């Protein structure tokens, strides 16, 4: 099992706070702010298969670099985006949070957690769940997301729309 506060690294509590803050930004539709949580080379990734090793040679449900994340976010404000009328909403529960690893040289930590996300639009509620792996950069004051990977329990299922950010 893991240390709660690795040498010079962030405390578990600070990590929890960060993940809850991220969840709240998503729940409240504060997507621009959410985008700013990422590093410039930050990646948001939802694999399409179990233990997918690679987003480059295998399709993914979402695989966003900074540019695609910005496109995704701006589309939520675009009145022409017909699939987003009315705006879908989500609730994000994050639990089972642990610091898996912290490198005091790169100042990166690997955080694992479990999530349940509800998506709602037009009388339909969808339940998603799985495991998050956040790679966070830590500068003693705040975190930045280098990679957020959301591995869905049902990633291989035949999905209808997944509108919201997981």
């Amino acid at each position, binding site marked *: 099992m893991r240390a709660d506060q690795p040498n010079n690294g962030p405390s578990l509590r600070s990590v929890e706070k960060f993940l809850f803050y991220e969840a709240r930004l998503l729940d409240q539709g504060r997507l621009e702010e959410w985008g700013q949580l990422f590093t410039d080379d930050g990646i948001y990734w939802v694999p399409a298969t179990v233990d997918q090793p690679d987003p480059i040679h295998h*399709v993914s449900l979402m695989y966003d670099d900074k540019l695609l994340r910005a496109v995704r976010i701006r589309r939520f404000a675009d009145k022409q985006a017909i699939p987003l009328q009315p705006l879908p909403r989500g609730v994000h529960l994050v639990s089972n949070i642990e610091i898996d690893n912290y490198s005091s040289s790169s100042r990166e930590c690997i955080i694992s957690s479990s999530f349940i996300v509800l998506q709602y639009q037009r009388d339909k509620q969808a339940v998603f769940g799985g495991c998050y792996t956040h790679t966070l950069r830590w500068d003693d004051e705040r975190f930045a997301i280098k990679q957020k990977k959301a591995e869905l329990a049902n990633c291989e299922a035949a999905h209808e729309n997944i509108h919201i950010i997981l």
Partner: protein
Amino acid sequence: MSADLDVDVDVGKLVEPDRVHRSIYTDPTIFQLEMERIFEHTWIYVGHDSQVPDPGDYYATVIGRQPVIMFRHTDTKVKVLYNRCAHKGAMLVGDTCGNVQQFSCGYHGWCYDTDGSLKSIPLEKGYDGTRFDRNDPQSSMRSVARVGSYRGFVFASLSPDGPELREWLVGVDASIDNLADRAPAGELEITGGVLRYMHDSNWKLFVENLNDLMHPMKVHQSSSMTARTTAKKMLSKDAPVPAAIEILAPFSGGYSFFDTMGLHAFDYGHSYSGGKVSIHSAYSDIPDYVEAMESAYGPERTQDIFSENRHNTIFYPSLTIKGAIQSIRVVRPIAVDRTLIESWTFRLKGAPDALLQRSILYCNLVNSSANLVGPEDYEAYLRQQHGLSSQGSDWVLMHRNFGQERDLDNGERAANGTSDLAFRNQYLAWKNYMTATIS
């Protein structure tokens, strides 16, 4: 249920040359007839033989309402069998793919060879002196009526009647050729997984949409323009255009751009859009690829291959190909208002890895249920599916450039890209299929 249609009425009346009746999208009885007369009758795409490279490899799927297995019997032969035990009907595999030495039924252990022939029955002597005949074909796994393959694309027909595969493919075979020819080695390999997108809408709405070149400017304006403007804002002027923008920008390319692409229609409902020009034709070159092609084919033939930039080709009703981006979508109807779309990606054998990467990126952006483009199309289908339950009008209009198509050889017809030719051509075939057993 079928409040809109008396089954005894000639379904042919639902199709006129330039419009179709809304009930063909909403009536469950029509759907069952379609399964029987189209999907369980004509050539349906089963899979690509690269999915079962080794002897014993199998891939389980459905044709219409019926579970089947595609598998590699020997190194050279791919077979398609009903996924059904001859004994009491259990499916012989429960998983989607795998490798087996034989098919051993999980219920009572009847065993079949990988050509489907009955191998062994536990306590077989119990059948002595009964009507059971182990040599009756019904005592083995049944093969579907006909299997055909073209450059690795495996099709099957559950009916012994109808045209040969090559005859049925006339006109659109070239789209498969162009896709396969883009591999320096001339061969394809399915790779990179599958995206499975469930649509609560009729399968024909999806199929129509593919060669509907009037829709991108409106439906995809949001994703395409947002991508353009975001890139403009975020990137410096002289930065290279990212691949994602190369992919998304052409979706709002202007009506004349789409009109210029052109449309070609063929017998049996097939068609393709694009040709010399398509939304894929302005992609940047990938280092070393042209070289690999030229060393395989020579410069002239390479030029020929690259000059063909078809957009979507529809092998009516079940397969659609985007050759220039090495991606296919497969149509699996489930109910009158439910359709599964599978998106698969090909690796071009002998081509640089970067091509596959671009195909994967394309597939993510366009075909994922969680991304930008696909949900725009799906929203259009959803609005149609619900709107068509209204009696505001009974007809779906397909008049655009009616009578202006040019007749070419072999049943081919050509039109400008924004013509409704592809729709009309699909419903001509639909009517033929659906009324064949009535007349």
